[in-house]
C-alpha cells in the first residue's frame, strides 16, 4: 500500500548519482532541472504519503505505525542492524517539512546560483542531503538513523565548503564537521550502550510503552543486564544520545559551528542550517521520547535547562550581530532551543503522563519545528535575495531597501511577525503552545521563555528595520542600485509565506475557538487526537509582550539616525562587545582545545604514536631490510653454484631425516 515510499529515498539518490557522475558534462540548466524534477516527484510522493497516512482510520484512537520495508542488513547474534522505512506521525510530518523546504530551495537556487562555477555539483550535493535527511526521518531503528545522521553531516560539510577557494568557507566546513562529529561520538557510544543492554536498536518497543502497555524488552538478555539497563544504563544512553543531538541541533556549548556555517551559499543555510538538518536533534529526542518518558524522566530536566540557557544565550547574541545571516543563525539556535525545551517540559508529574494536557510540550515542539522550518526558510531565502541585491551580508550597507525590493520586504515582514509570535501567523500558535507547556512545568521556565520570546521579537525587528528602513547607504547604492530578485527566487518566498499565513490563520482561529483538525490532531505524544486550545491568559500576555518589544525595536531602530541605540552602545560598550563576540565562546573553545587538549592530551598521544607505534613498525621493516641485504650476495647468478648448494642442502636434509 505504501510501497511507493521507497522512491522517496531512491529518487534523490538517483539524481545525486547522475549529477555526481555526469554533472560536469551537462549544461547548468539540465543539471538543475534533473535535481528539481526528482525533488518535485519526491514532494508529490511525500504529500501523497501524508494524505494516505493521515486519511487512514485510526486504530484505538491512534495512527498505526507502518513499516513498508524492512530487511536485516547485518545480523549479529541477537542484535541486528536493519534498513527500512517507518511511517508514523512525526516521520510523515518531517517528510512534508523536508520535501517542501527542499523543493523551494531547489527552485530558488536556479536564481541564486545562476552562473556559479560548480552549479551541477551544488545540485548533486543538495540531492545527497535530501536523500540522507529523508533516510534519517524514515529510519526504522536507531542505527539506521545514525548512518543517515552521519551522511547528513557529510553533505552539510560539503555544502558549507562549497566555495572551497575561499579560506573562511574551508575553515567553517571543517569546524562544522569536527564539532558535530565530536558530538556524534557520544551518540554512537549511547547507541552501542543501548544496543548492548537491550539487545535491540529498534524504536518499536518504545512505541509500545507510550501506549501504556510497558512491555519489557529484556526477554533475551540476561537478568543482570536487564537490571542494569532498567536502573541507570538507559538514562545514560539517552543522555549520550542527547549530546549527539545537541551537537547537530547547535545547543550550547556545541553551537559554535552553526554561525560559521553561514559561509555556505544562502539557500543551503535556509535548507540545512535553518529548516531541516539542525532540527535533527529535536527529531531524535522526539523519536526516543517514549524511552525518555519511561526510563529517564528525571534526565529530561537536562534537556530543559540546556534548552533554556541556549535559547537565552543565542537571543542575547543575536541582538548585537551586524551580519544578517549571523542574526538569523543565532535566532535559529534560539528557536531550536525552544523546541528542545518544549520536548523536555513534557512531563508535569508522571502520573498525569497520558493525560491529554500533559503531552502538550511534545505536540508544541513538533508544531514549532514545522512552523519554524517554513518561516525561517523564508527569512533565509529573503536574506539571500537581499545579499544577491546588495552583495554584502553587513547590515551597515543596507537600509531603505523596501523601495527596491517590495516582494522580499513583504515576505520578510510576514516571517518576522511569525517568528515574533503575533496572532494569525504560524509562529504564534506553536510558540504559545510551548510557553503554555513551560508554564505547566514550572512558572519559572514559563516566564523565562516568555522573556526570550520578547527578545526574539526585538532582535528580529531590529534586523528588519536595519535592512528595510533606516538610512539608505547612498554611497554603496550609487554604482549598484539594488533590484528585486528574479521570479525563481521570489516564488519560493511567496509559497513559504502563504504556508506561514495559512497555517497561522487556521491554527489561531482554531485554537481560540477550539476547532480540531489542526496540528495536534496529527502529532501527539500518545498518538490520540489532541485539540489545540489556547490558554487565553498566556496567549494575551505573550502577544502583548511581543507587540511591546516590536514597538521598542521600532522606536529604537526605525528612524534615520539611531540616537538611543548609540547611547546604549556608549553606556555598555563592554556588554555590547561581549555580545558581538558571542560572549567569547569561540575563544574559550579555542583555548580549551589548543592550549589544554592539544598540549596536554594530543601531544603525548602524538609522541607515543610517532615513537612507539611507528617505531615498532619501522624497526620491523629495518630488520627485514637488513636480513635481505646480508643474504643478497648469495645470489651470484652462477647456475652451477646454485646446483651445488641445492645438492648439498638435499644431502644434508636426507642425512638429518635418516638420523631422526
Amino acid at each position, binding site marked *: 500500500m505504501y510501497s511507493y515510499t521507497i522512491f522517496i529515498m531512491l529518487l534523490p539518490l538517483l539524481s545525486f548519482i547522475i549529477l555526481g557522475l555526469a554533472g560536469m558534462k551537462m549544461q547548468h540548466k539540465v543539471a538543475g532541472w534533473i535535481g528539481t524534477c526528482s525533488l518535485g516527484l519526491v514532494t508529490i510522493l511525500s504529500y501523497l504519503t501524508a494524505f494516505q497516512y493521515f486519511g487512514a482510520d485510526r486504530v484505538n484512537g491512534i495512527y498505526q505505525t507502518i513499516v513498508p520495508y524492512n530487511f536485516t542488513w547485518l545480523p549479529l547474534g541477537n542484535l541486528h542492524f536493519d534498513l527500512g522505512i517507518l511511517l508514523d506521525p512525526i516521520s510523515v510530518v518531517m517528510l512534508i517539512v523536508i520535501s517542501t523546504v527542499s523543493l523551494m530551495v531547489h527552485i530558488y537556487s536556479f536564481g541564486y546560483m545562476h552562473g556559479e562555477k560548480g552549479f551541477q555539483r551544488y545540485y548533486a550535493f543538495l540531492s545527497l542531503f535530501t536523500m540522507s535527511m529523508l533516510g534519517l526521518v524514515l529510519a526504522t531503528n536507531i542505527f539506521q538513523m545514525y548512518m543517515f545522521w552521519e551522511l547528513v553531516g557529510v553533505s552539510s560539510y560539503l555544502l558549507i565548503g562549497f566555495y572551497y577557494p575561499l579560506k573562511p568557507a574551508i575553515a567553517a566546513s571543517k569546524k562544522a564537521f569536527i564539532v558535530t562529529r565530536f558530538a556524534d561520538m557520544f551518540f554512537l557510544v549511547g547507541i552501542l550502550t543501548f544496543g548492548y543492554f537491550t539487545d535491540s536498536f529498534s524504536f518499536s518497543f518504545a512505541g509500545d510503552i507510550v501506549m501504556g502497555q510497558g512491555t519489557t524488552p529484556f526477554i533475551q538478555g540476561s537478568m543482570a543486564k536487564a537490571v542494569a539497563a532498567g536502573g541507570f544504563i538507559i538514562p545514560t544512553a539517552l543522555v549520550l544520545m542527547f549530546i549527539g543531538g545537541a551537537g547537530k541541533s547547535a545547543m550550547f556549548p556545541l553551537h559554535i559551528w552553526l554561525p560559521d556555517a553561514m559561509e555556505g551559499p544562502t539557500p543551503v543555510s535556509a535548507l540545512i542550517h535553518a529548516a531541516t538538518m539542525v532540527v535533527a536533534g529535536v527529531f531524535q529526542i522526539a523519536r526516543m521520547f517514549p524511552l525518555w518518558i519511561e526510563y529517564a524522566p528525571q534526565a529530561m530536566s537536562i534537556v530543559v535547562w540546556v534548552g533554556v540557557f541556549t535559547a537565552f544565550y543565542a537571543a542575547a547574541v543575536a541582538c548585537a550581530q551586524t551580519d544578517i545571516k549571523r542574526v538569523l543563525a543565532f535566532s535559529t539556535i534560539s528557536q531550536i532551543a525552544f523546541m528542545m525545551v518544549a520536548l523536555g517540559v513534557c512531563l508535569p508529574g508522571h502520573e498525569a503522563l497520558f493525560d491529554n494536557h500533559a503531552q502538550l510540550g511534545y505536540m508544541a515542539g513538533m508544531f514549532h519545528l514545522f512552523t519554524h522550518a517554513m518561516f525561517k526558510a523564508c527569512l533565509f531565502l529573503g536574506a539571500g535575495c537581499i545579499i544577491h541585491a546588495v552583495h554584502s551580508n553587513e547590515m551597515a550597507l543596507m537600509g531603505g531597501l523596501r523601495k527596491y525590493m517590495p516582494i522580499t520586504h513583504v515576505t520578510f515582514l510576514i516571517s518576522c511577525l511569525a517568528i515574533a509570535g503575533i496572532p494569525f501567523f504560524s509562529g504564534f500558535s506553536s510558540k504559545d503552545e510551548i510557553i503554555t507547556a513551560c508554564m505547566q512545568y514550572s512558572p519559572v521556565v514559563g516566564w523565562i521563555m516568555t522573556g526570550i520570546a520578547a527578545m526574539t521579537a526585538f532582535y528580529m525587528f531590529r534586523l528588519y528595520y536595519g535592512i528595510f528602513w533606516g538610512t539608505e547607504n547612498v554611497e554603496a547604492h550609487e554604482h549598484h542600485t539594488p533590484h528585486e530578485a528574479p521570479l525563481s527566487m521570489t516564488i519560493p518566498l511567496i509559497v513559504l509565506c502563504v504556508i506561514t499565513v495559512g497555517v497561522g490563520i487556521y491554527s489561531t482561529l482554531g485554537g481560540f475557538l477550539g476547532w480540531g483538525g489542526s496540528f495536534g490532531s496529527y502529532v501527539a505524544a500518545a498518538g490520540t487526537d489532541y485539540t489545540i486550545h489556547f490558554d487565553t491568559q498566556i496567549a494575551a500576555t505573550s502577544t502583548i509582550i511581543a507587540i511591546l518589544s516590536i514597538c521598542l525595536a521600532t522606536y529604537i531602530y526605525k528612524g534615520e539616525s539611531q540616537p538611543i541605540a548609540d547611547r546604549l552602545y556608549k553606556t555598555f560598550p563592554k556588554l555590547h562587545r561581549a555580545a558581538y563576540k558571542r560572549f567569547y565562546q569561540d575563544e574559550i573553545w579555542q583555548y580549551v582545545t589548543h592550549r589544554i587538549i592539544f598540549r596536554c592530551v594530543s601531544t603525548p598521544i602524538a609522541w607515543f604514536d610517532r615513537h612507539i607505534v611507528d617505531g615498532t613498525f619501522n624497526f620491523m621493516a629495518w630488520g627485514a631490510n637488513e636480513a635481505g641485504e646480508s643474504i643478497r650476495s648469495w*645470489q651470484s*647468478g652462477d*647456475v652451477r653454484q646454485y*646446483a*651445488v648448494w641445492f645438492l648439498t642442502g638435499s644431502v644434508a636434509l636426507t642425512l638429518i631425516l635418516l638420523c631422526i
Partner: protein
Amino acid sequence: MIPVECYFALSALLFFIGVYGFVTRRNLIAMLISVELVLNAVDINFAAINRLLYPEGMEGMFMTLFVIGVAAAESAVAIAIIINVYRKFRSDSVDAIQNMKR
C-alpha cells in the same frame, strides 16, 4: 633373471653422472643432457621398484611414462630457451648469462 641390485646400481650411477655433469659442465646443452640422465635414473628406479614390490600393479610404470612425457616437454622448452640465449649472447655457456639475475 637380473638381480634387482643391478638396476639400483645402474640407477645410482646414472644419477650421480647426471649430477656431476650438471655441476661441472658449462655448456647449456650438456647441462640439459645431464638433467635428462638424472630423470632417467629415477625412471629406472620407478620401474624396478614397482616390479619388486607390487608386481601386480602398474603405477610405477605409468609414472615412468609420465616422467618421460614431462622430460620431453621440458627439453623442448629448455632448448627453446637455449636458442634464445644463444641468439642474444652469442654463446651457449652458463657463465655468459650470469647477469640474468637482475
